[in-house]
């Protein structure tokens, strides 16, 4: 180690510490505080904002939808990412396919929202369908569907599909790296011993990849609890598609109710805290930090 004067480290970290404090630590504490006040933070209202969050119908619906996102989005992205990672490992055009699956990660959720709104485009049965899904239905002699309006399952599912389209590439990249880390001899040995591909997958690949799968699933869960852009662009929470983050944005900017908006933000944090704990534990395990 180099000789270090007492004040030198602080010269290096103070700019970062200052910004982190001003933009993350202080505002978070302040948000908790103002969540106990009325809309303009002047009158103390106790837990009234929280009671509102857990009794208001739209809020309850948002929780339900976020839960639906977690239940469908997380397994779908992780599972598809895993399957694709394992499948493409066996073909020579692996890089090309991976690029295609991964590409949506590079574009904005807003762009993805436009892309998929067009896929779901709906026109009355009398006119030509320009959205590809309804054109497929028309080709099969089926009535066109207003995909983003049919509540509560179809439209939420359609939004989740957009999320899956975006994030599967992310899961695939991480899981692919982990899969390639499994010694090939191990898999070959099992196959030589007569294990079916299915068995190799369940008994060898899955257990070995479990830590990585857990990391990816945690990351996806955090993502999905904060989901905002897709819903904001595609339905703005109408037709029973509201989610927590969009609700928070509306309370903050449309209704100007800072008390309620803060309470929603705190609830969002509380939902994510288990993930923070897992993150810190993982960090501690990773290295005893020299």
């Amino acid at each position, binding site marked *: 180690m180099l000789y270090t004067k007492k004040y030198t480290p602080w010269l290096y970290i103070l700019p970062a510490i200052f*910004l982190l404090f001003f933009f993350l630590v202080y505002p978070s504490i302040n948000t908790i505080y103002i969540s106990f006040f009325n809309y303009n933070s002047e009158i103390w209202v106790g837990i009234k904002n929280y009671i509102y969050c857990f009794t208001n119908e739209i809020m309850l619906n948002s929780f339900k939808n976020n839960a639906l996102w977690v239940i469908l989005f997380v397994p779908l992205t992780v599972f598809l990412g895993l399957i694709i990672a394992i499948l493409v490992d066996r073909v020579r055009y692996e890089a090309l396919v991976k690029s295609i699956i991964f590409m949506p990660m590079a574009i904005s959720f807003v762009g993805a929202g436009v*892309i998929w709104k067009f896929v779901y485009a709906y026109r009355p049965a009398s006119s030509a369908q320009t959205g590809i899904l309804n054109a497929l239905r028309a080709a099969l002699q089926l009535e066109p569907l207003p995909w983003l309006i049919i509540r509560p399952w179809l439209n939420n599912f359609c939004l989740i599909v957009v999320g899956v389209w975006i994030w599967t590439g992310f899961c695939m990249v991480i899981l692919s790296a982990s899969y390639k880390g499994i010694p090939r001899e191990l898999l070959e040995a099992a196959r030589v011993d007569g294990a079916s591909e299915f068995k190799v997958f369940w008994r060898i690949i899955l257990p070995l990849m479990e830590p990585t799968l857990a990391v990816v699933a945690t990351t996806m869960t955090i993502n999905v609890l904060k989901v905002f852009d897709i819903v904001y662009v595609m339905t703005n929470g109408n037709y029973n598609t509201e989610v927590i983050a969009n609700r928070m944005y509306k309370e903050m900017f449309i209704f100007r109710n800072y008390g309620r908006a803060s309470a929603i933000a705190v609830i969002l944090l509380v939902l994510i805290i288990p993930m923070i704990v897992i993150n810190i534990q993982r960090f501690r395990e990773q290295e005893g930090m020299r």
Partner: protein
Amino acid sequence: MKKLEPLFTSLPLHLIIILIAFIWILPSVGLLITSFRSSAEVASSGWWSIFQHPFNFTCFTLENYHQVIIRIGIGRAFLNTLFITIPSTVIPIAIASLAAYAFAWMDFPGRRFLFVILVGLLVVPLQMTMIPILRVFNKLGLAGTFPGIWLAHTGYGLPLIIYLLYNFISSLPSELFDASSIDGAGHFQVFTKLVLPLSLPALASVTIFQFLWIWNDLLVALVYLGGTPDVAPMTVRISALVGSYGQDWELLTAAAFVSMVLPLILFLSLQRYFVKGILAGAVKG
């Protein structure tokens, strides 16, 4: 082993993979084609109908791009996005690299404690911070200004950037620092002459990440900049267009494609660094 597999057993595999890739790319192809079709055609037939006359190039037009960029102002929004993104990428990386170096190679009281807090901050939802910051910004006149959003993106980006750079810088061999110590070099020299050049791959990864993150950001821009055309980035303008031009798909798709061009070029040319960044952030994390 691979080569010995007869075609008929590997055929289903190929079909499945190609089907998945096809489904994945299809929506984007529809966007790209639609953005070059005239409004009359977009309204009367699906984008796939162009494949009935694949060599009829007369049905393509640049009119939508002209409309979107000049009249609707996506050109201006493109410049705004660029003007938001570049400082919001450079500033946090400069500040974070200093901090990451100190966390990795200096000993000071509270180092471990501060670092654990930093890891915790990684997952604090931005929603937790917006109202207090907005109030301070309003008082300081920073709301709706570029410097305001540069600062916000800097603060928000720091935890992850410090964390990723720390992972890389702390794994540099310690002999490097012993040798420098004998040569009488100070920390600042080691940092600028040794650590930064050696960290170029990691710096490239986080730069691409932060750049794309800011370029594609909607929420932070909505909150701190708002929708006024002289500051609003493309994401904010396009999400507003979805409401006001809901059925004019030729315009929406052209606008969306303008916003995707640069990320796609970056992604295709620098995919390697992008992937490395993801792996460093997720697997090590």
